[in-house]
């Protein structure tokens, strides 16, 4: 029997504000433990929260990018529970009235585009971080708490249960990351914890009622989400096909063993006793401000991809790479204004530009697209060879130089002059008598070998056509050549 998996995701991501959501403390990563704290984020008696407007702005931007309806009136609530990393014993969150509802995000599947519905988007505060002396909570005599993270603004995005596989879940997360990256509201680094994802999954036969759902946690990468959900779907399918029953529970993804593990008995059922946060007035959002933010949204990834495919007539795979960051897309477009061969340009950007970026660490946004356009132009005009072009490009992008200047300064111009090439070629002929003989015996391939030797001797600067001509000429007129 073929079961259908019904998956819903709960994504938490850190908004990249400079200060925390309810106080002025810095959100910088990697600071000395408990050095970015104040009475508010430590929950000291008497302290009160004040909403950071920039956190709200980022939340609204994200909601708009997800096609959500931003609510004119929303509210903060308290979620009450005891845990040492929670300074006030409640988390300020949004429960009944989230800041936005009812959006969607489209993902590309082999069979076409799928729309994943978003149920709600809400804001809340991050908790502190526990550091266990023995590495894990079970093996430790004591634990320490770092409250630097307490009060970092979080956005929670809840999807409708209309994801059908681990792969779809991963694609959704990848697209979400790209979207929020474009909106400049979150870094979405799952490995650093700036994006976390929990999932609900149940199975049913087509047309049948929904099965019991299982919550899956502790998935620490997009791949882990995919594997964990596929594993879980398979696990449930096996139980169901044996006519067994799915226990409604929370399971942890065990990365090492690639299984989900039941947490039964380890977690008590919680009643969070939500109620409206009396320290913060209701959140009233003016429609005009939402409009302003909407109009200021950048071109979003899906739109940009379509446009790239049409405007530059590129392959979707190339477009996916070129639009993988707003900076890279912008780099391509800037360069494209001066280049005619868009596909060629795409190859340069995908290949050399990204390689140079990775090798040098130079940000794409700090590179000059015109340098690439000029390098390509030098190459097309035959002034430099391809290997030289790559060298020139690196120098131009990393050090911010003009490519023509680099060619001139470093004497990298193409060598076609027979006066220069002649002696070089003669030397190559003398050093490679076997190849010469082979050529003379009619093996054309040997010519390519000899050309390569000449090119290598000039570190790629020789003009291949000129080398070819001179080489043939010299071989034709070799002394002692047998007619």
């Amino acid at each position: 029997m073929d079961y259908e998996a019904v998956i819903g995701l709960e994504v938490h991501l850190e908004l990249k504000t400079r200060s925390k959501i309810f106080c002025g403390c810095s959100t910088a990563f990697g600071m000395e433990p408990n050095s970015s704290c104040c009475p508010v984020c430590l929950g000291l008696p008497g302290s009160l929260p004040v909403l950071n407007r920039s956190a709200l702005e980022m939340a609204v931007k994200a909601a708009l990018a997800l096609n959500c309806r931003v609510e004119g009136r929303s509210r903060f609530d308290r979620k009450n529970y005891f845990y040492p990393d929670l300074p006030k014993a409640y988390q300020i969150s949004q429960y009944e009235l989230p800041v936005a509802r009812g959006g969607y995000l489209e993902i590309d599947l082999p069979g076409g585009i799928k729309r994943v519905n978003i149920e709600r988007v809400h804001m809340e505060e991050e908790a502190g971080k526990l550091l266990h002396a023995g590495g894990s909570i079970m093996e430790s005599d004591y634990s320490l708490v770092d409250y630097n993270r307490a009060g970092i603004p979080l956005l929670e995005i809840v999807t409708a249960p209309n994801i059908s596989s681990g792969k779809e879940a991963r694609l959704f997360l990848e697209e979400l990351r790209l979207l929020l990256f474009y909106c400049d509201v979150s870094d979405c680094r799952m490995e650093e914890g700036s994006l976390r994802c929990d999932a609900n999954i149940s199975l049913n036969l087509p047309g049948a009622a929904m099965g019991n759902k299982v919550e899956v946690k502790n998935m620490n990468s997009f791949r882990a989400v995919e594997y964990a959900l596929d594993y879980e779907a398979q696990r449930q399918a096996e139980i169901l096909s044996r006519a067994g029953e799915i226990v409604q529970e929370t399971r942890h993804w065990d990365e090492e063993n690639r299984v989900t593990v039941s947490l039964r008995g380890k977690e008590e059922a919680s009643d969070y006793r939500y109620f409206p946060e009396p320290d913060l007035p209701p959140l009233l959002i003016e429609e005009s401000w939402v409009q302003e933010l909407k109009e200021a949204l950048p071109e979003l990834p899906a739109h940009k991809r379509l446009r790239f495919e049409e405007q530059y007539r590129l392959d979707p795979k190339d477009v996916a790479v070129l639009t993988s960051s707003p900076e890279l897309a912008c780099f391509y477009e800037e360069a494209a204004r001066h280049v005619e061969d868009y596909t060629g340009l795409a190859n340069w950007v995908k290949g050399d530009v990204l390689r140079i970026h990775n090798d040098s660490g130079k940000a794409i946004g700090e590179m000059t697209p015109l340098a690439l356009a000029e390098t390509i132009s030098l190459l097309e005009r035959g002034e430099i060879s391809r290997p030289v072009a790559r060298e020139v490009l690196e120098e131009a992008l990393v050090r911010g130089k003009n490519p023509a200047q680099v060619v001139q300064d470093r004497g990298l111009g193409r060598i076609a002059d027979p006066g220069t090439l002649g002696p070089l070629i003669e030397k190559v002929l003398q050093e490679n008598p076997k190849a010469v003989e082979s050529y003379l015996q009619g093996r054309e391939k040997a010519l390519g070998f000899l050309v390569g030797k000449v090119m290598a001797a000039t570190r790629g600067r020789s003009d291949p056509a000129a080398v070819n001509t001179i080489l043939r000429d010299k071989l034709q007129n070799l002394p002692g050549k047998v007619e």
Partner: protein
Amino acid sequence: MDLFRLSALQLSGLMREGEVSSEEVVNSFLQRIEQVEPQVKAFLLLCPEEALAAAREVDRRRLRGDELNFLAGVPVAVKDNICTRGLRTTCASRILENYVPPYDATVVSAIRRAGLPILGKTNMDEFAMGSSTENSAFFSTRNPWDTRRVPGGSSGGSAAAVAAGEAPLALGSDTGGSVRQPAAFCGVTGLRPTYGRVSRYGLIAFASSLDQVGTHSRDAAGGLALFRLIAGHDPLDATSINTPLEEDVEADNFCENGLKGLRLGLISEQMGDGFAPEVKEKIRQTAALLEGEGAFVEEVSLPLTDYALAAYYLINPAEASSNLGRYDGVRYGLSERISGGGVREMFAHTRGKGFGMEVKRRIILGSYALSAGYYDAYYLQALKVRTLIKKEMEKAFERFDVLFGPSTPTTPFMLGEKVDDPLQMYLSDVCNITDALTGNPSLSIPCGLSPAGMPVGMQLSAPPLNEMLLFRVAAAIENMRPLPPLPEQVNILEGGQC
């Protein structure tokens, strides 16, 4: 001359004229404290050195000719749930017995900046939960008019300190009557400002939607001056109101307008059977006085206020149960770490040992009211009642400028009398609850002494932001009928009972 017998404005006047120094003023109060504190027990912490240092600083600045605040040099006592940097702030609880805040509440910053020396921190019911100051984890404060009786609560220490001449002014907090009820019991003036008028930043939260910092003073003028000093918008408190105070009237001549044409509504529900005859009589006498001054007085019925107490005792514990969750032994205050126990045991033992009975009662009540399945029936229902009461009050204020009635159903009760009967204790705030729920400003003023010599308080309420009007009426009454002098009993009775 006994400086401690003078009101805040009299002291301020003498200092401005150069007749006395702030140091002399503070010394006079410190001597008075030494004399009567063993009987009154109003303070949890005294800080004479800091007070004198602040006084000398004001004196230096005055000599130098600096522009000083109107109240500069007038000492003040501060309730022990208001954070004072470097001064222990305990909420009269074991759980915060040794807690020293690293920051000043916004109101404390304001009084320090204005040069008011802080004499000490006053006793209260633990976490402001109570109406007699008997719920202090440390000791009970006595009523200076009869030390066998309670001073009221929860700001009993502040009210008693002002009544006993230990301080001319004090800061208290009012969640459901905690400034006004003890003001009435101790025969002083007590203001609960409009919700949001005074910053709550640094006031240790009890029930956040109800808490307000208030004032205790000997008279209306002193209360108004202190109120003006602490009121105003605070960017650190998102519920703080951003409306400027009314036109800057000199605090000592603000009552010239008189009462002619003022419409006063006497709340009939507060003149019924449950109210002591000697209290009702004083209120009627005062109503007659007001009419004589040209005010229009009429009874008004507010039937929904009968539900106020029930709604209040759901909202208040619900918020309290959440606000008090942070006392878990992890970061500050009492921490009970049991050998072999984990973090849950630490939470349980810390809270079990650190909180008193009334605090535990409210946490349990509040947690219950917020629980899944009960939320709609209790907490949500209480919020709806709160909204209805607010509407009823708004309607009443269309007809009346000020509503009034007794501040308390009875004069002060005996120590121990109600301590084992929470419902009776809650009922002693019944007159004060409505304004707490609606956020209206409310003022308790002395209204003479009962035949037994106990103070009676009258409570005046006005629409939001009309504190000035309340003080105007209070000052007019003071002009007609002088305030009772300081109770002398505290000098005579040794120790008292308990």
